[in-house]
């Protein structure tokens, strides 16, 4: 019975969670040489990709409104074997591979009825084990039952005790911290696991609020999908240096592993606020940090597309250089794995009532190869009209191949892919449920189910 709770709704007997690492393993701020060695290992690993030794395969980890799927690419990335569903019927916000072992997956899941949890697989999805303590806020004493009906989100929630509604975003920890994972939640919350995802603890410095103000303050209100903490980004040079995106709330930075946070939103528009010059309260849709140049950040925001080069603190609206008729509003932003000047966005219609569909019904990806100074349209193979695609913030990804493979999933359940860095696109799969997320990863072919 106790064992049964550890299995996914659909899978075979599960393995025990990995043992809790020692404090030395998880200690923050380890010697720089450890970090460099880990980075070198990762670089070596990512150099054996598609077509290399034939030992690595691209997989797409697809989270949907009704379950998760794993798509396994052939060596040319033209055909994909479809494996799944996992967690059929569950809302799966994110499925992420651990780049530190290339075998472990974490998946966040809930249903319309049941509370949010996290599953872990150490065998690329053959079996899943449920977290024994999923992300949850501290219990607030003496919550008057009369207030409880208001639910976890909305005004006054902090005073009544917040409850995690979804683990929206999952990020593997720093390379020097093998069993560490991070999760961003709805409503705003940041959690960390030290044991590979079995148990999760709240980051008080964030969850009590990142800017010294209450979560009820103006600027932290919720999107229609709730107040989303996303884009949990870790500086590969320093495990203590992180960024977190809040939709709505803005981008925040910590340099001490999450104890203290400061807003980092200068230069970003916030047209929807009465005072658009506020230090926080912005709406980053998706933020990305370049792995080879961690001083470079890109941001797809409710109010435009931006780039920031640290140590600078003022974002530049590179979306101004996109065609006026397209605009620079979108949800995902995807970076080239090796070239910090190259990024892709999926523009959407952010006018009038915000249809959030491809402008004019003509889907296209836009690419910059000069850090946002110029953009080119990439729509080869995509519908030339009546294509009303919506692509959510986690639903576009790049693999590490050369040329880079790109993938996006739509809310109408289609997955499109490009094996030539966006020049031409082909449909990979249709008829899935609403796609919430796609992650591309490289795994050992021999380890695949």
């Amino acid at each position, binding site marked *: 019975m106790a064992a049964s709770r550890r299995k996914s709704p659909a899978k075979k007997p599960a393995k025990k969670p990995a043992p809790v690492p020692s404090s030395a393993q998880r200690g923050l701020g380890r010697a720089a040489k450890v970090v460099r060695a880990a980075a070198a290992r990762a670089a070596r690993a990512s150099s054996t990709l598609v077509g290399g030794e034939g030992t690595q395969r691209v997989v797409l980890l697809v989270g949907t409104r009704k379950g998760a799927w794993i798509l396994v690419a052939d060596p040319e990335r033209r055909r994909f074997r479809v494996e799944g569903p996992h967690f059929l019927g569950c809302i799966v916000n994110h499925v992420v591979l651990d780049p530190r072992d290339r075998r472990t997956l974490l998946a966040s899941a809930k249903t319309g009825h049941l509370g949010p949890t996290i599953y872990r697989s150490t065998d690329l999805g053959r079996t899943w084990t449920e977290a024994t303590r999923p992300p949850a806020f*501290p219990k607030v004493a003496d919550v008057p*039952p009369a207030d409880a009906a208001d639910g976890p989100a909305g005004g006054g929630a902090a005073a009544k005790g917040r409850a995690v509604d979804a683990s929206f975003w999952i990020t593997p920890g720093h390379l020097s911290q093998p069993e560490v994972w991070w999760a961003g939640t709805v409503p705003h919350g940041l959690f960390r696991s030290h044991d590979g995802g079995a148990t999760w603890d709240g980051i008080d410095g964030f969850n009590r609020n990142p800017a010294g103000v209450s979560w009820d303050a103006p600027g932290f209100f919720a999107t229609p999908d709730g107040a989303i903490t996303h884009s949990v980004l870790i500086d590969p040079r320093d495990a203590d240096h992180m960024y977190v995106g809040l939709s709505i709330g803005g981008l925040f930075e910590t340099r001490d592993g999450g104890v203290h946070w400061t807003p980092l939103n200068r230069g970003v528009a916030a047209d929807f606020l009465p005072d658009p010059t506020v230090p926080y309260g912005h709406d980053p849709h998706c933020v990305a940090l370049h792995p080879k140049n961690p001083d470079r950040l890109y941001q797809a925001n409710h109010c435009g597309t931006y780039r920031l080069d640290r140590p600078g603190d003022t974002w530049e609206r590179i979306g101004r250089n996109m065609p006026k008729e397209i605009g620079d509003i979108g949800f995902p932003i995807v970076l080239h794995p090796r070239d910090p000047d190259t990024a892709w966005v999926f523009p959407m219609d952010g006018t009038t009532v915000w249809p959030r569909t491809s402008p004019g019904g003509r889907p296209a990806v836009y690419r910059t190869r000069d850090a946002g100074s110029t953009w080119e349209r990439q729509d080869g193979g995509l519908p030339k009209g009546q294509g009303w695609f919506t692509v959510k913030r986690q639903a576009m990804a790049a693999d590490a191949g050369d040329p880079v493979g790109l993938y996006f999933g739509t809310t109408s359940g289609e997955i499109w892919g490009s094996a030539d860095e966006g020049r031409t696109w082909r449909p990979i799969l249709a008829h899935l449920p609403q796609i919430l997320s796609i992650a591309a990863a490289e795994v050992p072919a021999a380890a695949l189910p």
Partner: protein
Amino acid sequence: MTGEAAGPHRVHIPSPLRSYTAGRAEVEASGGTLAAILADLEAAFAGIRFRMIDEQDRIRPHILIFVAGRPARDLRARVEPGDEVQIVAALSGG
């Protein structure tokens, strides 16, 4: 206060939660309040409670729990000897 010699009570488990009960639709649990019943359930079927009760001890929005046919408002609901507990996953859209 919560558990003295009350029960066991029959507890009906809805299908979304039967992955925790090895597929069983009906189990037994003891306790004089709904909180105690749920603690007993958790002891037998680890993880089941959090899927229906949030970390502030609120019954999740689309979960209904009936005690002797009456909807329980919160976990303080009393469960008298012989009462049945029915957990219902309410309809929650598409």
